[in-house]
């Protein structure tokens, strides 16, 4: 939760123009974002080159910029490794930015996109697909997962705003927890009754394996637009993160900002969940890391989150293939392995009350 202490308000100086009353570290932010992008480029190259059959970096360069479908190595790089690496980077950015939006909007450091019911909705749709229409084509399953995520978040939003007094962050969080519990229970029940639990777990833990250009082409336009939209909204999100009174005092249309941000979260996290399953910890962890580095201004947190989230998933994906080849370790486990110690460190530094 960003601080709204009086001192922070004072340090911001005037509230006009582009200045927002929050602490931020623009210089560090630029370093983090640029450094992150360079590291991301390197890890993408590494991700493409390592695997069951190692391909040299020179060949990777050749295959990307001088593609020759006759060569088997080029084929591996182009058809298997590249979509996988790019999908990892894209979904990492999506989860992290969606988490940052949720945390800024609800002012709750425990919030992430799972709280809108997205993960549980997608999981329920997946369980229904496996139970009642086994052998459904891959693309169709992804579409249904997205529909499930959309329905769940629609219910959360609907119930949150139906109640007297309108949609408050507290209500959004509680409705999200209840709807998630309900949908998770339903999909667990289906999984146990139809004995498909382990199949579902494989799908969910499978992560990026088997990602093709087809999926990437399908999600890229939506997520790219939503990422750009999140960047454009970052100023409003910063205002919202200061609390409603401050935000409306600064002239923000709170209701409209909230709806727009929720739609962005749905598009970002919904597509990411549908494509690679719930790698939920990224959305919770990365915004905290970004905030720790660049301060509490969302104009820097959002791009930094995007870069760091992409980096984390690409690295975790490399590790998942390196640990015990040809067996792939679940990517969610590796993200927890990398992320948990850091999160513990942040938690120990935490002095504020929630």
């Amino acid at each position, binding site marked *: 939760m960003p601080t709204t202490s009086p001192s922070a308000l004072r340090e911001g100086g005037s509230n006009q123009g582009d200045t927002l009353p929050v602490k931020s570290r623009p210089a560090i932010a630029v370093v983090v974002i640029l450094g992150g992008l360079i590291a991301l480029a390197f890890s993408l190259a590494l991700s493409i080159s390592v695997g069951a059959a190692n391909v040299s970096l020179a060949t990777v360069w050749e295959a990307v910029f001088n593609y020759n479908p006759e060569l088997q190595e080029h084929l591996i790089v182009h058809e298997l490794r590249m979509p996988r690496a790019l999908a990892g980077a894209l979904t990492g950015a999506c989860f992290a930015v969606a988490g940052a939006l949720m945390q800024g909007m609800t002012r709750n450091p425990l919030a992430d996109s799972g709280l809108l019911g997205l993960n549980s909705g997608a999981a329920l749709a997946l369980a229904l697909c496996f139970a009642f229409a086994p052998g459904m084509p891959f693309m169709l399953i992804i579409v249904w997962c997205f529909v499930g995520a959309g329905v769940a978040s629609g219910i959360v939003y609907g119930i949150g705003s139906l109640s007297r007094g309108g949609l408050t962050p507290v209500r959004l969080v509680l409705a999200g927890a209840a709807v998630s519990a309900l949908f998770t229970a339903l999909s667990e029940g289906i999984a146990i009754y139809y004995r498909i639990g382990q199949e579902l777990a494989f799908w969910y833990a499978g992560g990026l394996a088997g990602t093709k250009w087809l999926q990437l082409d399908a999600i890229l336009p939506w997520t790219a637009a939503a990422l750009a939209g999140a960047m454009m909204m970052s100023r409003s999100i910063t205002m919202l993160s200061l609390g409603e009174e401050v935000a409306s005092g600064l002239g923000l249309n709170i209701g409209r900002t909230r709806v727009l941000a929720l739609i962005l979260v749905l598009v970002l996290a919904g597509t990411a969940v549908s494509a690679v399953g719930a790698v939920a910890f990224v959305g919770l962890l990365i915004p905290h890391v970004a905030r720790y580095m660049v301060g509490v201004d969302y104009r820097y947190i959002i791009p930094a989150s995007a870069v760091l989230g992409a980096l984390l998933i690409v690295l975790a994906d490399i590790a998942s293939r390196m640990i015990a080849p040809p067996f792939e*370790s679940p990517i969610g486990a590796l993200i927890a392995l990398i992320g948990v110690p850091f999160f513990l460190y942040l938690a120990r530094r935490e002095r504020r009350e929630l």
Partner: protein
Amino acid sequence: MDTEMLHQSARRRRSKALFMLAVLLILIAIVFLISMNAGSFRMSAGTVLNTLFGGGTDKEELILFEFRLPRICIALLVGAGLALSGCVLQGISRNGLSDPGILGINAGSGLVVLLFIAFYPTTDAAPVFALPILALVGACVTALIIFGLAYKKGEGIMPSRLILTGIAIAAAISSVTIVLMLRISPEKYQFAATWMAGSIWGSTWTFVLALLPWVIVLGAYMMVKARSLNVLALGDQLASGLGARVGGDRSRLLLVAAGLAGACVAVSGGIGFVGLIGPHIARRLVGPRHEALLPTSALCGALLMLVADTVSRALPMSSEIPTGIVVAVIGAPYFLYLMARSRA
């Protein structure tokens, strides 16, 4: 407001709380009777009463006294215990999303049980007594790890740090769980998944007797500390301003909440939802003061568990659907309805 009016409003609040408690008790009694009829062997209400007072056949007595009654008692105790634990945790951490899960209790006990199942040769002969004890050990060890990491000299256990630490540890444990779950055989997976979704596992009188003292003693301690909970729920600054010694009471209450939830999870599997939802429902019925909130939470939790257990036994595909799932399917819509209606 003068003293007379204060007294009056206090009296009104107390009578409202007593009324709610009475309603809940009556509801529990009704569901109790229905629950004894439910199951694959149908018994009419008359037969049940007849058997209770010693007039039934041997078969009827066996089913009622050895299978249904202990299971009903366990459901009531577990529901009350988890709801009490969740109520205390939400009060201390001042976060509505807290439940026994933030102490890592579900994750820890689940992992230990899973380890046992994974390395135990068969599933059918799994010893009845080993699982609850292992689950209790797992729950306590995890809670202690989280307390240890969240503890800082001079400050004690800060609620915000506790929650963040709990999330991190639970995430780490569940990632290990995922890896293990993918590697065990399908039959073992089915058993482990059912346990983790929360099914009442130890339904014999031994477990009732083992669980009863935990719920009574620790629940009574919480009731005694209801006043400190009211103060703690106001936040640290206000609490120490009112002269409460914040640190000591908070640590003791946290330990008590962890112990109670651990004992419950040991016999019931990972039913976390009662601990989240019971206190919320109670708060919307009787308000935020813990003197009324604690007993109401306990009864709400007990009622919810009993209803869920009855439904899961009465369903045509009985014994396949774990109680924990029914709890969420019944509890979540009711909670959402309460939330949509209320202002706060």
